[in-house]
C-alpha cells in the first residue's frame, strides 16, 4: 500500500504544466479546438511533447522519454483535466504508451515509443465494441491468421482519438486468447469515423476494419493481464483528470459566489451557497486523495492498483459530476449558457464518468477485490 507523498519536484512539475496550460490552453483555445476537425492544436502538441517533454513523461529514457513514472503523469493529467486541454494526450501518453511499454517486445518499444514521446506519432488503443460493455470479456473482434500476419474484420467504438491516429493498438481474439495487435493508421480496409460526442473536448471514433492487416504486439500470448493493467492505469489517470476538473469547478463556483451580488450581498454569504461550496471542497479533496492513491499505487507497481483504481474511478466520477453540476447551479442562469465554460466541465464530467464504466461498475469491481 503506497503512501501519498508528493515531492518538491512534483510541485514544480505541476507549476510548469499549469503555467503552460494557462498560456496555451485558455478557454478560448479550448473552444476553438473542440469544434475543429483535428480536435487539437498541433503547435501546442509539439511544445507539449518537445519543449515540456510531457508526452514521453512515463517513457524510459532509452526510448526517448523523460523516464518518469505514473505519479508525474498523473500530475500532468490533473492539470490537463483542470484546463480541459484538447489534445491526444490521454490516448498516446497514457493508454498507448503503457500498452506498448508493458505489452510490447523490445523491438516494438524501440520502433514505436520514440516517435510517440516526440509527439510525432499518435497512437490510440481500441478495446470496446458496439453493443459490448466495459469488460474485456465482451471483446469479440477476431483476428484471423494470414500469411505472416493477421487480418481484422469488424468494429471498435469509443476509441479515444482513434480518428487520425498513426498507430492503433487493437484488442482482438486470437488463437492464443485475447491479443493486442498493431494496425497502421493508413492500413487498407480501415475506416474511422469521428463520433458526435457529448464532451467536445475529447474525440472518440468508431473504427471499421475490413480484412485489415494487423501485427501482434510483442509475444503472442494472452493479453488479458496486460489489458487489465492498462485499464487500471487508465482509471487512475482518468481520476487525476477528474480531480483537476472538479477542483476547477470548485474554484469557478466559489469565485463567482464571492462576486455575484443578490439581495444586496454576495451570494457566497448565504449558507445555501456557502455550504454547497464546503461540501464540494470536501468531495474535491477526497477525489484528490482517491486519484493520488491510485497514482502512487500505479507507480509503486504494487498489486493493489486494481482496488485503488476502482476506488478512484468510483469516487472521482461522482465527485466531478457533482462539482460540475453544482458549479452550474451556483452560477444560476449564466451557468446554463453556452458562453460560460461551466457546461464544458459538466459534459466532460459526465463523459468521464461513463468512459471505462460508471461509478457503480467500479464499486462492483472494488467490492469483488475486497471480497464483499
Amino acid at each position, binding site marked *: 500500500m503506497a503512501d501519498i507523498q508528493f515531492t518538491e519536484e512534483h510541485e514544480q512539475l505541476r507549476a510548469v504544466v499549469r503555467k503552460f496550460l494557462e498560456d496555451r490552453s485558455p478557454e478560448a483555445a479550448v473552444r476553438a479546438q473542440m469544434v475543429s476537425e483535428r480536435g487539437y492544436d498541433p503547435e501546442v502538441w509539439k511544445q507539449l511533447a518537445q519543449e515540456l517533454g510531457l508526452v514521453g513523461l512515463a517513457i524510459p529514457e532509452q526510448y526517448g522519454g523523460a523516464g518518469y513514472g505514473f505519479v508525474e503523469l498523473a500530475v500532468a493529467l490533473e492539470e490537463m483535466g483542470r484546463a480541459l486541454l484538447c489534445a491526444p494526450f490521454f490516448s498516446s501518453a497514457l493508454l498507448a504508451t503503457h500498452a506498448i511499454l508493458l505489452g510490447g517486445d523490445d523491438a516494438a518499444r524501440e520502433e514505436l515509443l520514440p516517435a510517440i514521446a516526440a509527439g510525432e506519432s499518435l497512437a490510440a488503443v481500441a478495446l470496446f465494441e458496439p453493443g459490448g460493455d466495459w469488460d474485456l470479456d465482451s471483446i469479440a473482434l477476431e483476428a484471423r491468421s494470414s500469411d505472416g500476419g493477421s487480418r481484422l474484420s469488424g468494429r471498435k467504438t469509443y476509441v479515444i482519438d482513434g480518428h487520425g491516429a498513426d498507430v492503433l493498438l487493437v484488442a482482438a481474439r486470437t488463437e492464443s486468447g485475447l491479443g493486442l495487435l498493431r494496425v497502421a493508421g493508413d492500413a487498407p480496409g480501415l475506416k474511422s469515423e469521428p463520433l458526435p460526442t457529448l464532451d467536445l473536448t475529447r474525440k472518440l471514433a468508431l473504427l471499421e476494419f475490413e480484412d485489415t492487416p494487423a501485427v501482434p504486439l510483442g509475444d503472442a500470448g494472452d493479453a488479458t493481464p496486460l489489458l487489465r493493467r492498462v485499464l487500471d492505469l487508465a482509471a487512475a489517470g482518468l481520476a487525476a483528470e477528474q480531480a483537476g476538473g472538479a477542483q476547477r469547478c470548485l474554484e469557478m463556483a466559489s469565485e463567482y459566489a464571492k462576486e455575484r451580488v443578490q*439581495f*444586496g450581498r454576495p451570494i457566497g454569504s*448565504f449558507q445555501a451557497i456557502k455550504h454547497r461550496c464546503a461540501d464540494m471542497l470536501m468531495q474535491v479533496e477526497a477525489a484528490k486523495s482517491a486519484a493520488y492513491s491510485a497514482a502512487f499505487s500505479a507507480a509503486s507497481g504494487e498489486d493493489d492498483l486494481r482496488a485503488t483504481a476502482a476506488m478512484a474511478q468510483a469516487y472521482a466520477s461522482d465527485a466531478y459530476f457533482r462539482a460540475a453540476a453544482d458549479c*452550474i*447551479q451556483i452560477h*444560476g*442562469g449564466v451557468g446554463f*449558457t453556452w458562453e460560460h465554460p461551466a457546461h464544458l466541465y459538466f459534459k466532460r464530467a459526465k463523459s468521464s464518468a461513463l468512459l471505462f464504466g460508471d461509478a457503480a461498475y467500479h464499486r462492483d469491481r472494488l467490492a469483488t477485490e475486497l471480497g464483499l
Partner: protein
Amino acid sequence: MTSIGETELRERTRALLEQVHPDDPDVDCAAFRGAQFDHGLAWVHFPEGLGGLDLTRKAQVFVDDELRQHCKTVYNDLSVNAIGIGMGAPTVLAYGSEEMKRRYLRPIFTGEEIWCQLFSEPGAGSDVAGLSSRAVRDGDDWIVNGQKVWTSLAHYSAYGMLVTRTDPEAAKHDGLSYFVLDMKLPGVEVKPLHQITGEAEFNEVFLNDVRIPNSMMLGKEGQGWKVSITTLMNERVALGGGTESRRGAGPIQLLVDLWQERGGSDGSAADAVMRDRIAGLWIEYELLRLTNQRARSSMRSGVPGPEGSVGKLMSAELNKKLYEACLDVLEGEGLTYEPGFDLRRPSGKRLDRLSLIKHGFLRSRANSIEGGTSEIMRNILGERVLGLPQDVRVDKDRPWSEVPRNG
C-alpha cells in the same frame, strides 16, 4: 359563483362542438378557441364575458374531458401560448383594467397573440426585485432602458410582461411597476441566448428608449412587485411537473422504457443496483404526481399559494436525477450526442427517443434554476409554509439606489 353543474357544463361543451369543431379542416386554432372563449369555456373560473362562467377552477376538468372525448384535435395550452395562458391571463385578470381584460384575454387564449415574461435581468436573477432597468416618466408615457434575459418566446411574442424600476429612491420592492409591453415598439431588440444544448430557447431583450404609454401599466405605479408575485406563483404551479394523471407516465417512462428495452436486469450485481435506483426514482416520481394532486385538490381559492413550491422543488431536483439515471443506463452510448451542438433556435422537430433523452439530460439542468432556483423554493417553503423567520435583509428599508449590487 353560478350554479352550473357538471351535467350542464358538459352539455354546453357539446353544444359548442356542434357549432364549431376543431377536427373540421376549415376551423383553425384561433377560430375554435375563439368560440370556446366566447362560450365561457376557456377558463370557467374566469368571469362571464371574459372566457369564463364564474365557476370553480376545478369545474374546468369537465370541459376538458368532453373535448378529449369528442375531438381528435386537442389544443394544449402549453403549445398554444404557454406563458400567456399560464401566467399572463391570471395576471391581467387580477390587475388589468376592464378594458385591458377585454382587449388581451381572448387573443391570449386563442394564441393569436403570444406573450412573454420580461422579469430577469443580468444582475437580477433570484433577486428579481433587485432589477435595474429603468422607466422614467415623460408626459403620458414612460421611457424604458435596460436589459432582460431568459425571455423564452420573446422572438415570437406580441406582448411582454415587463417589470421595471420607476422609482430608484424607494425601497427595492416599492419602486417597481409592471407594464404590458408591445414587443413591436421601437427600441425593443430581441437576441438569441444560446444554452448548453447549443440551442437558443431563450432570448436577451434589450430596451433602448422604449416609449410605453402609462395606460399599459398593470396595477398601480410602485405596485409592480405585488403584481409580479401573481405571475410568479402561477409560474411555479406550471413548472411543478408531475401533472400526469396516469401513474408511471412522463419522464419516468423514458427511464423505465429505456431500461426494459435494454433487457432490464440480467441478475448481475450492477443491474441490481440500477434496478434499485430506478425503483427509487419511480417512487419519487409517483409521489410527486400524488403530492401535486393533493395540493390541487386542497387548493380552494383560485390563487396558487406557496404549496406549489413543493411540487416545483421536487420536480426540478427529481428531473435531473431521472436523466442522470438514463445516461447511466445508456452506458457507453451516453458518450455520444446525436442532436449535435449547432448554435441555432430549437428546431421544434420531434427527436427520436435517444436524442430526447440526451437533450433532456442537458436541458434538465435548468430546471432547478428557471422559474425560481431550488434555493429560492426552499426559502419560500421555509418561510411561507413553515413560518420560519426571514434571513437578515440588508436590502430592505433603504432606497434601492443605496443597496449594493452587481457592477
